[in-house]
């Protein structure tokens, strides 16, 4: 036998022995008659019950007698039960026999004076008080939680009628217990002396059981439980309506919001147009808006000044189109009879010019006719003022009109552009060097000069000397241009040569309309005349560019004679200096008014523009 096994055997033996002893005790010890319990309900009376135990022969009524002793004085004795209730084996002590705060002891005696006494059966009445259960237990619904799942209940009752609470003899506190029906564990609420209490957190739909008991304050023994009451609250039907209603509202609002957002997103552009209309960007016609951005100012300037390939050609043409200056030139056909210069009849210009009439009139008329505008208002404001031909206008007219004696006089003046006015009244009809009356402006120079086409004859000569000098000089119209340097002296100084066919009088007075300006080198060999604006002249600002006193006579005082040139010639070729080389006109009847200007003074150069009339004169 090992040590462990011996120990366990010993333990087992002890257990068995104790159990056996207990069983033996239980079996062996007879159960004596004893006091079962003593209870007071109102602290004024009390009852005691006994039991005969195993002594069944003493169970008959009267076999056992109960004796008690009140230990309120040392000389107290045992007394018998004042009131027996044999049916219950109970002894009732009424008010007279009940004293509080005084110890009582109970004793059982049988018929043959056997006493069954236990010291533990002594008590004081206040310690055995077990109040009756409260009465009139009921409940009321306090409220239901917002979720509709819980509710609160107020339970109220009344004190047991046996307990004299009114006199203050008993102070009672109550305890409520509740549970759901299908559960087993009771929930106890806190003890309190009031006759009502609230139960919180009950569930809707569940049935609850509630009962109550009470005890004396500061004592330990409870009375019995009251009868249970049942609490049940079913679902409130109104919840069914409110909850779906709120749900519908919420979903409706969400749906409307979504719809609004969809509309806004789909019609975004339109809305943006309505709310925020686009601001037009800066734009200039014909110019790329890219150039208007920062940093491209130079290009912009270039374009605006017309040098680039930009849109300014349209600009220029627009400008010209807007300008009615050159659009209308009203020409009045004069009477051929009135023309004094029968020699000039061959020229259209002569026809146009009515030299028989007083010059002034002619001039005026001519002028007015030439460069006058119809009397409507087209272009009047911007170009010429036909009512008052100003200086520049007169200048222009003078240059355009060949052979005007007054004009030639003006031209003879050495000063440059000193007197632009043309006096036309004094002179009579004079022979004009036939110059073409019409000039086609081919281009406008950047400096403002008008470039005329070869169809023009300009007899602008600076004539400082008299007509004789002019006759000596040969006017060469350098159409070729290659020998321009050689003929510099004989270069074509366009002078307005006024030839008087009868007297050969020259009226070359006038201001010197110099072509090319005094400071600028005379343009040699130009088939056409470049007219530069007279720098010293004051030009009225109202007139257009081409109308300024533009005609500048060449520098050289050498008057040269312009041979009569044809109205139209054929451009032979263009020289290196962009001069047009024209075909010499056929030699027709030389103009009689021509001074002895040896044609041989014209070297191999073609004469240029020679009208048939002049040709006749040319022949010596």
């Amino acid at each position, binding site marked *: 036998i090992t040590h462990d096994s011996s120990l366990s055997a010993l333990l087992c033996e002890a257990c068995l022995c104790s159990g056996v002893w207990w069983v033996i005790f239980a079996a062996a010890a007879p159960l004596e008659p004893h006091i079962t319990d003593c209870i007071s309900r109102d602290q004024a009376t009390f009852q005691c019950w006994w039991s005969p135990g195993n002594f069944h022969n003493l169970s008959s009524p009267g076999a056992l007698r109960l004796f008690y002793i009140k230990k309120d004085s040392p000389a107290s004795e045992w007394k018998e039960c004042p009131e027996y209730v044999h049916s219950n084996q109970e002894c009732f002590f009424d*008010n007279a026999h009940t004293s509080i705060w005084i110890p009582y002891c109970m004793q059982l005696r049988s018929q043959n004076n056997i006493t069954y006494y236990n010291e533990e059966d002594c008590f004081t009445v206040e310690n055995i008080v077990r109040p009756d259960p409260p009465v009139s237990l009921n409940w009321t619904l306090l409220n239901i939680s917002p979720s509709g799942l819980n509710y609160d209940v107020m339970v109220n009752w009344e004190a047991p009628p046996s307990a004299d609470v009114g006199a203050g003899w008993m102070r009672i506190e109550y305890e409520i217990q509740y549970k759901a029906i299908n559960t087993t564990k009771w929930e106890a609420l806190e003890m309190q002396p009031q006759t009502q209490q609230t139960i919180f957190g009950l569930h809707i739909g569940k049935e609850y059981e509630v009962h109550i008991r009470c005890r004396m304050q500061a004592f330990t023994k409870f009375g019995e439980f009251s009868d249970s009451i049942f609490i049940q609250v079913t679902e409130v039907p109104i919840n069914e309506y409110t909850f779906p209603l709120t749900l519908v509202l919420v979903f409706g609002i969400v749906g409307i919001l979504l719809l609004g957002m969809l509309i806004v997103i789909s019609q975004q552009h339109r809305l943006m147009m309505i709310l925020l209309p686009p601001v037009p960007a800066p734009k200039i016609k014909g110019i790329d808006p890219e150039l208007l951005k920062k940093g491209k100012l130079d290009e912009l300037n270039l374009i605006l000044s017309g040098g680039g390939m930009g849109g300014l050609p349209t600009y220029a043409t627009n400008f010209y189109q807007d300008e009615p200056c050159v659009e209308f030139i009203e020409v009045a056909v004069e009477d051929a009879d009135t023309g004094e210069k029968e020699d000039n009849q061959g020229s259209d210009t002569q026809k146009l010019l009515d030299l028989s009439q007083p010059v002034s009139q002619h001039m005026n008329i001519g002028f007015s006719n030439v460069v006058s505008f119809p009397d409507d208002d087209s272009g009047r404001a911007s170009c010429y003022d036909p009512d008052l031909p100003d200086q520049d206008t007169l200048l222009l007219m003078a240059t355009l009109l060949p052979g005007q004696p007054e004009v030639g006089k003006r031209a003879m003046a050495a000063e440059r552009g000193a007197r632009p006015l043309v006096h036309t009244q004094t002179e009579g009809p004079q022979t004009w060097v036939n110059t073409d009356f019409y000039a086609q402006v081919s281009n406008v120079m950047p400096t403002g000069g008008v470039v005329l086409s070869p169809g023009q004859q300009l007899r602008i000569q600076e004539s400082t000397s008299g007509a004789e000098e002019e006759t000596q000089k040969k006017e060469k119209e350098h159409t070729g241009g290659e020998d321009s340097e050689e003929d510099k002296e004989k270069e074509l100084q366009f002078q307005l040569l006024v030839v008087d066919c009868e007297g050969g009088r020259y009226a070359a007075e006038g201001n010197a309309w110099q072509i090319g300006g005094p400071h600028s080198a005379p343009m040699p060999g130009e088939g056409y005349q470049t007219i530069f604006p007279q720098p010293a002249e004051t030009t009225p600002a109202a007139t257009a560019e081409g109308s300024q006193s533009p005609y500048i006579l060449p520098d050289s005082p050498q008057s040269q004679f312009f041979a009569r040139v044809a109205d139209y010639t054929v451009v032979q070729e263009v020289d290196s200096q962009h001069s047009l080389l024209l075909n010499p006109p056929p030699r027709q009847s030389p103009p009689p008014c021509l001074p002895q200007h040896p044609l041989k003074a014209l070297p191999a150069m073609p004469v240029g523009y020679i009208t048939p009339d002049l040709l006749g004169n040319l022949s010596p």
Partner: protein
Amino acid sequence: MPGNIRSVSFAWMVLVYLLFCSRRASVGAAPICANAQAGCHVLSLANLFDRVIQHSARTHSISNDLHSEFEQYFLPSKNHIGRVSRNCHTSSILTPNGKDNAQRMAREELTEVILKLLVAWRDPLWHFHQNMAHHHDFNNFSSNKALEMSDMVHELRKGVEKVAEKMQVLGIISNTVSSLASPEASLPSDSAEWRLMKDYNLLSCFRRDSNKVQNYLKILKCRIVPEHGC
């Protein structure tokens, strides 16, 4: 204008003074006195009774707790009432033993009985507390309770004395309450008996007597001023 300002400030100060004075009168900072003396805040008799009854209930509750603890820790046997209760030192004081007896007793006698009981327990409780503090068998909780119990009995006695005064003033009882003077002399010569009692006996006896006091006060109140709570 300065005259206006002065008058306004004076009115303002008067108002503030009145407010403070009235508030002080209502809060009850003035001492409670049974007699309607000047400057005292007078409590009604019912109010006094309620306070005293609450006090006695608390005293009894504490004694009950201490008694239960004692039984639990030191004397685990079931019932000792039969053995213990005969040795209480206050047994010589005649007390009504039932509701009927208490209700039949004169108010003055009842008041006297209450006061006797309270006086009798002042010293024993004090010594009991000292014993508990020195004996480390008890925990601090029990020691504190014993101290509280001793203090409460002392205050309870004062309260009951005041109630008796008020009742005498009101003419409810006659001026024959003699327990107010020399409470110590009322004890019997074998007052040293209580020193021989064991702590458990002392607690049992006091528990009984505190219950008596409580009941007597309640009965007295419901007989004299049965307004509410009865």
